[in-house]
C-alpha cells in the first residue's frame, strides 16, 4: 500500500473510531471490539518475530501478562495515568524479550520456542508468589466512573486500543520496508546464508524479539482496566498464545496485513461464537481453522488473495 494511502486510512480509522464511540450507544460492540483490536496488536507483534524472522514464540501469554501486571503494580504503587502505564509495560516486556533472546537466540529456532514456554511457566510462578499484585488471589482494578470526552470508560478503552492497533500495524509496516525488515527476511529464509552475507543476525534477532515482546506487553497493559479482576490463571492463559499463532498463520505471515486480517476474522468469529454457539465448539473452531489453513493455504488469506489477483492479471 502506498505510504500516503496507508497513513490516510490509519488517521481516518483512529479519528473516526474515536468520534464514532459517541454516536454508537451499543456498549457490547465496544467490549467485543476491544478484544478483537487487542488481538490485532498481539498477532502483529507475534508475526514480527514469527513471520518476519522465522522464530516461533509459544509464550505470548507471558509477555501479555507481564504487561498487565506491570500496569497493576505501577497503578498500585504510583497511580500513574494509563499512557504512562502502557509505556512502562512495553519497556518491561521488551526487556524480557531481549533477555530471552539473548539467552537462546544463538541456538536453533526450536530451542527459542521451548524456552518461551519455560519462560511462561517461570513468570507465572513468580507472579503467583508476588503478593503485592495479589498473587494467586487476584487483583482488582476499579475503573473510573467519569472519563474526559467519552460516555463511559469502555469507550475510552476501545479508542485507546484502536490507536494502539493502528500504531502496531504502522510499526510492522515500517519494519517490512526498512533495512531491518530485509535483514529479518534473509534470516527467515536461510540464516546461515544470511550470516555468510554479513547480515548481523544476532543483533537483528534481538531487535525483533524486543519489539515483539514490547508490543505484546503494550497490548496487555490496559487489560486489567478492561476486565477489573485479574488473576494469574486468566492472564497467562494458553488461549492468548494459541490465538497469537493462529491469527497470523491464517491471515498470512509474510506481510503486515496478514495478522490484521487473521485477527479481525478469527477474533470476530470468536466474539460471535461466544454469544451464539456458546460451547466447546469455540475451541474446536480455532483448532480446525488453524489446521485447515496450515495444510491447505500455507500463505494464509493474503497468499490466497495474491494468487487470485495474479491469476486475474494474467487473464
Amino acid at each position, binding site marked *: 500500500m502506498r505510504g500516503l494511502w496507508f497513513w490516510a486510512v490509519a488517521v481516518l480509522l483512529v479519528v473516526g473510531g474515536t468520534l464514532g464511540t459517541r454516536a454508537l450507544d451499543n456498549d457490547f460492540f465496544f467490549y467485543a471490539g476491544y478484544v478483537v483490536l487487542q488481538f490485532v496488536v498481539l498477532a502483529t507483534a507475534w508475526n514480527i518475530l514469527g513471520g518476519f524472522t522465522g522464530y516461533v514464540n509459544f509464550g505470548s501469554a507471558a509477555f501479555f501478562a507481564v504487561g498487565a501486571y506491570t500496569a497493576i503494580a505501577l497503578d498500585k504503587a504510583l497511580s500513574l495515568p494509563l499512557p504512562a502505564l502502557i509505556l512502562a509495560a512495553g519497556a518491561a516486556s521488551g526487556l524480557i524479550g531481549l533477555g530471552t533472546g539473548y539467552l537462546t537466540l544463538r541456538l536453533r529456532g526450536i*530451542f527459542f*520456542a521451548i524456552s518461551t514456554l*519455560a519462560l511462561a511457566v*517461570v513468570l507465572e510462578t513468580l507472579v503467583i508468589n508476588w503478593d503485592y499484585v495479589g498473587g494467586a488471589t487476584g487483583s482488582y482494578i476499579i475503573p473510573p466512573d467519569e472519563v474526559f470526552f467519552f460516555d463511559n470508560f469502555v469507550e475510552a478503552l476501545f479508542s485507546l486500543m484502536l490507536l494502539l492497533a493502528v500504531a502496531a500495524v504502522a510499526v510492522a509496516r515500517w519494519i517490512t520496508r526498512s533495512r531491518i525488515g530485509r535483514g529479518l527476511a534473509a534470516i527467515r529464509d536461510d540464516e546461515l546464508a544470511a550470516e555468510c552475507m554479513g547480515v548481523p543476525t544476532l543483533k537483528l534477532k534481538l531487535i525483533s524479539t524486543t519489539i515483539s515482546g514490547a508490543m505484546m506487553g503494550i497490548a496487555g497493559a490496559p487489560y486489567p482496566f478492561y476486565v477489573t479482576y485479574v488473576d494469574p490463571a486468566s492472564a497467562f492463559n494458553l488461549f492468548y498464545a494459541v490465538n497469537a499463532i493462529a491469527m497470523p498463520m491464517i491471515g498470512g505471515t509474510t506481510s503486515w496485513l496478514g495478522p490484521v486480517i487473521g485477527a479481525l476474522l478469527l477474533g470476530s468469529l470468536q466474539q460471535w461464537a461466544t454469544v451464539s454457539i456458546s460451547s466447546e465448539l469455540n475451541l474446536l473452531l480455532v483448532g*480446525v481453522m488453524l489446521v485447515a489453513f496450515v495444510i491447505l493455504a500455507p500463505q494464509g488469506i493474503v497468499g490466497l488473495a495474491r494468487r487470485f489477483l495474479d491469476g486475474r492479471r494474467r487473464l
Partner: protein
Amino acid sequence: MFTADLLLNAVVAGVLLGGFYAAAAIGLTIAFGQLDVVNIAHPAFIVSGSFCAYFLNDAYGIDPILVGVLLTPVYFAVGVALYSVYYTSFERHGEESLRGLAFFFGIMFIVEVLLIMSFGVDYRLVDTAYIGESIKLGFIGLPYRLLVPFAVSLAMAGAIYLFLSRTFTGRAILAVSQDRLALRLMGADPVRVKQVAFGLALATTAVAGALLIVIGPVEPSIGRLYIGRVFAIVVLGGMTSISGTIVAALILGVVESLVGTLYGPSWAPAVAFGFLLVTLAVRPAGLFGR
C-alpha cells in the same frame, strides 16, 4: 526439622515421579529428538490415553495400565496416519518448522475439545487394588500408586531402547535421524521408517496416559501443564538419547521434589524450568547430547 529421612523420602518420591515423567517424554524423544517433528500435541495424546484407560476401567473393570498396553497398536496406527498427513503437507516441501508447529498446535486443541465433548470437563480418577497401599523399607515409604507406574515406565523405556539398538527397523530409525541420504543408500525407505518411528512415539502415549491417571486425577486440558515439562526433559537429555531422557526425567522429578520439600512447592515448576533455561544457555546440547 529437615531430617535425613525427610530428605531421603523426598529424593525417592522424586525418583518415582521422574520415572513417570520419563514415560511421558520418551515418545517425544523419538518424535522430536530423532525425527525433528515438533509434536506439541504429545501431552494431549497422553491425556487421551488417560481417558481411554478411565473409560475401559470404569466400564469393564480392566486394570488401567493393562488398557494402556492393549491400546498401543491403535495409537501406533494413529501415529502412522498422522505422520503421513504431516509428511505430505509439510516435510516433503521442506517447510516444516513454523507450519508444522502450527499444525500440531491445532491438533492439540482438536484432541482436547474432542475429549471435552466426549467426557465433559470433570476430573476423572481410577481406583485399583494397589492405589492407596505402600511398601515400607525402613523409614522409606514407596506408595504403589507411584511405584507401579515407575516400574512400567522403566520396562517400556528398556523395551524401546532394545528395539532401537537391536532390531533393523530400530537402527534404521536411529540412522534416519542422523543421515537421511545414507539411509536410502542402505536400502531402507526413510519415509516408511519415520512412519514407524512416529507410530511408536504415539504408542507410548497410550501407556503414559494410563500411568498418569493411576497417579492422579485427570481432566481434558491437563496436558497443557505437561508441555513444558516433557520438552524440557527431551532437551535436557540431549534430544536423541533414550538414556539421556530417562536421566533428565529423574533429575527433574528429584529437583521438583526437593524444592517442594525444602522451600515450598510453589517454587518447584519455576526451578525446574529455570534449570532448563540455564542449561540451554550454558550447554545447549543437553546433558547427553552430541
